[in-house]
């Protein structure tokens, strides 16, 4: 067995039935050196304080549930090694989100943003079964694959200064997801999505702080997607005066 280490966790607590505003609580615990931050939180909940609330599920950076603020940075706590930190570690809920309880944030606003960008393949006419499968080349896949790796962990929203300051901003993950469909060779809905992208809180609200791409645990690069979507929108907007936008897609 490896040597256990003593750590001090300063955890943000909030009980909506009792507390006006969030406060902090300190836990002194012993941890294994190879633990992740999430292991320590589970240890606190299991053995020290069962009232602590936090979200988690897969423990392997796939489900995107365990995003929290660790020492001021948005982190996926299941991926964040304890060895990166000193003796004192501060854990708080994700910034830019309303807090439901302790480390648990309200997701509803985030979910609404996702629906806004119509994240599905839109076509004018459904392909008949007899026509066979849709072909896509490796290059066509590479055009959007990076932007499809998002696990909806919301770290990008917690890091973005525009999300803080513009309540209507659709935000990095949702805009990157919309761009992912615009880049998909099977999709015909780019004109529809671009109208949304050019609207209130769309791609032009982004001021390229690049924080979303810095904190993204899956290297999705949402800021890159948004800058590409801006150029795409300039072209789409300019050509809309020349080429008539035809047909309904859904």
């Amino acid at each position, binding site marked *: 067995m490896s040597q256990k280490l003593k750590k001090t966790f300063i955890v943000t607590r*909030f009980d*909506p*039935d009792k*507390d006006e*505003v*969030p406060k902090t609580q300190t836990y002194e615990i012993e941890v294994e050196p190879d633990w992740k931050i999430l292991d320590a939180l589970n240890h606190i909940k299991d053995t020290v304080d069962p009232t602590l609330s936090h979200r988690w599920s897969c423990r392997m950076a796939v489900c995107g549930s365990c995003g929290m*603020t660790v020492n*001021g*940075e*948005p982190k996926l706590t299941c991926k964040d090694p304890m060895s990166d930190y000193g003796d004192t570690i501060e854990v*708080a809920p994700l*910034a*830019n*989100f*309303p*807090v*439901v309880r302790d480390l648990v944030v*309200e997701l*509803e*606003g*985030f*979910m*609404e*943003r996702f629906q806004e960008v119509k994240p599905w393949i839109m076509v004018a006419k459904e392909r008949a079964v007899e026509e066979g499968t849709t072909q896509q080349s490796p*290059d066509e896949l*590479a*055009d959007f694959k*990076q932007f499809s790796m998002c696990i909806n962990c919301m770290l990008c*929203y*917690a*890091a*973005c*200064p525009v*999300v*803080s300051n513009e*309540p209507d901003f659709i*935000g990095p993950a949702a805009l990157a997801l919309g761009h992912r469909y615009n*880049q998909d060779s099977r999709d015909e809905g780019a004109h529809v999505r671009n109208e949304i992208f050019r609207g209130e809180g769309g791609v032009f609200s982004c*001021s*390229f*702080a*690049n*924080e979303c*791409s*810095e904190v993204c645990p899956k290297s999705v*690069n949402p*800021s*890159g997607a948004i*800058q*590409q979507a801006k150029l795409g929108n300039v072209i789409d907007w300019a050509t809309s005066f020349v080429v008539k936008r035809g047909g309904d897609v859904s």
Partner: protein
Amino acid sequence: MKPGGPMPTRTADPRPPDKYPGRGRYPSYLAFGASGAFLMISALLLIRGVWALGDGGAAWDAYRGALGHPISLVYHGVAFIGLTWFALRLFRLFPATQPYRMGPIKRPADAVLVAGLYGVFFTVLAVGTLFLGGALL
């Protein structure tokens, strides 16, 4: 990131990112935005110069004389450093904004693109300086 409708339970208000605006990578981002002032002021001073050129030799000489004023020298010293930093940050972040391919051309590795853009910046600066300064042609 509040929902449009009412929330089912009472919640604590969102707080801004913990390191915003003074710590982490944010100061560099905000300074980049503030460099917009250098872009605007320097462009306006350049317009002033070209306008003076249109007014004739005496006006141009007066404009050149004004550039020797300590305030002008301090501003332009700071603006030169600021705009150089601005350019290098812009070119360092630029590759990440480029798509996987443009037509048949695939995006080169980020390091290659950054090196190329830095090369363009310093080449334009060197050649432009020599040319405008009268050392070339």
